[in-house]
């Protein structure tokens, strides 16, 4: 185990990002898809912080800070839509949402 470089962090971030994107594209459950998006945003934050450290400026950390704020808003809005749908027809399964695909 050699020294840990920025490349290690970025590689980990890429791996997590694509695991998250598999969740978004391959899963049906809206809650799980939402969680996968959050996972992708977390991966982006890891890359941002690694680059921020690499360049020695705060721009990456500021970006990560704003990403966290926006991710929280997205989670709130997404869950609100989910709750409204569930009230109407009791499902979170994207395949059951077929009204639009006649």
């Amino acid at each position, binding site marked *: 185990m050699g020294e840990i470089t920025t490349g290690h962090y970025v590689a980990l971030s890429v791996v997590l990002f694509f695991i998250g994107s598999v969740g978004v594209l391959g899963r049906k459950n809206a809650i799980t898809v939402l969680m996968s*998006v959050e996972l992708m945003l977390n991966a982006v934050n890891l*890359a941002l912080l690694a680059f921020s450290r690499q360049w020695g400026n705060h*721009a990456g950390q*500021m970006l990560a800070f704003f990403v966290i704020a926006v991710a929280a808003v*997205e989670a709130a*809005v*997404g869950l609100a*839509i*989910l709750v409204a749908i569930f009230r109407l027809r009791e499902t979170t399964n994207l395949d059951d949402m077929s009204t*639009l695909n006649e």
Partner: protein
Amino acid sequence: MNSGSMASGAALVFPDLSGGALNPLLPFLILSVGALVLLLLDSLFAKRNNLPWAMISSVLPLLALATYATRWPGQSGTTVFGPMYIEDPFASFVGILVCIATLFGMLLSETYLKKMGRYRGDYFALLAFSASGMVLFASTTEFLTLFLGLELLSIPVYILTGFLRRDQKSLEAAMKYFLLGAFSSALFLFGGAFIYGATGTTDLAVALRSAPQSPMLQIGFVLLLSGFLFKAATVPFHMWTPDVYEGAPTAVTAFMATSIKAASFGALGRLLYNAAPVTQILPIPDMLWWIAVLTMTVGNFAALTQSNIKRMLAYSSIAHAGYMTVGLVSFASSGDTEALAGVLYYLLAYTLMNIGAFGVVILWSEKGTERLEIGEYAGLGWKTPALGLAMTIFMISLAGIPPAAGFFGKYYIFRNAVEHGYVSLVVLGVLNSALSVYYYLRVLVALYMRPATREFTMDRSVVVGSVVAFCGLALLWIGIAPDTVLPGVPALVGWVRESVLTLR
């Protein structure tokens, strides 16, 4: 002594906000702070929800338009907060498009929401917030501000899409749009992170010029581009469009089909301008060539078989994104701003004809139930002659038949493409246009050549009627005489050209 300044190597000072320092930000501030005022009014008068919200809220885009008007002409362009907010003629033009779409979206909404039984003040505040995000999105080269602009324009639209929360389709469209939108923002962000990682700066204008050879920056640029293309709804990021346009409340569809297109193509033009060193290395023009062809073709072929007018207009909007991408191809390959001017002209025509068409759809819908099947429009051309005439103008303009503005817009974009050697692309574009005539004329056939199948009582709304009339007349006027001068307004084509000259 603060440590941040040592790390970043520059002294940190609180921005000077005195005097007129914030003046360039005025359109953004009017829309966003105005939205706060709307929320305040909404909570003060929550018990009586019968305030004339459309009238009150339309003051905001009108005020913003007024500030744009005072800047014109002879505006040189300034920045506020470093590269974070650029006020140049290009941003002004896109801002004007956004404000027109927002104004008409607000005016269409009152009648529509009353018909649908969910007339509330916060709806109009969300429209204004979204418009402020669009203004920001088209006015910056700094990645963080660009990202926040994107979110500020998107999140209200996710909510507005699901605004009719007793309606299954509306909520499902909101969920679909939200999940795919959040996914595309993640791609956009990852792209920005790579560009920052390759160059150490988040100002895209600097970053994209400083290390165009870096593979990391190139991956980042492609990811970033895909985020833009999602908002602009081009192939392969168009899948959400028909479902979302169909499910969303019609007034919201009219708003988002026009304003988001304007904001995203505007921001895309600015990005491609700053990315010139990268586009020379990566085959970006070739990539956009394929995207343009596929987007036109997929949009038009899918529109052929639609029987629902909202779905038809959704696929048609995909096709129109394709025509505009043709303009971007010639811009990206040559850097000739004239090609971008064509896109801006097209966006203006596109905004007017879509708002108008959706306005007619709203007028022809009945309380509680919308009449959206094209078959149900049978005979309406004779029963409501004025609306029939307006719809005819919108359809021939969308199809690109002279004398309406849609024709001149296509001519402008295609002529630029031919000048830059994209003859085969233009041939494909013209074939696509010819194909599209079929499904636009089908609406007219229903209007005039089929016997009426239902009792129809017009729900007269002066506001929506005048929006429709304005759009129809403006389309004819700028289509027949794109170079005429209104007192105080520069000739339209000259105006469009001037607005791209000082792009940065």
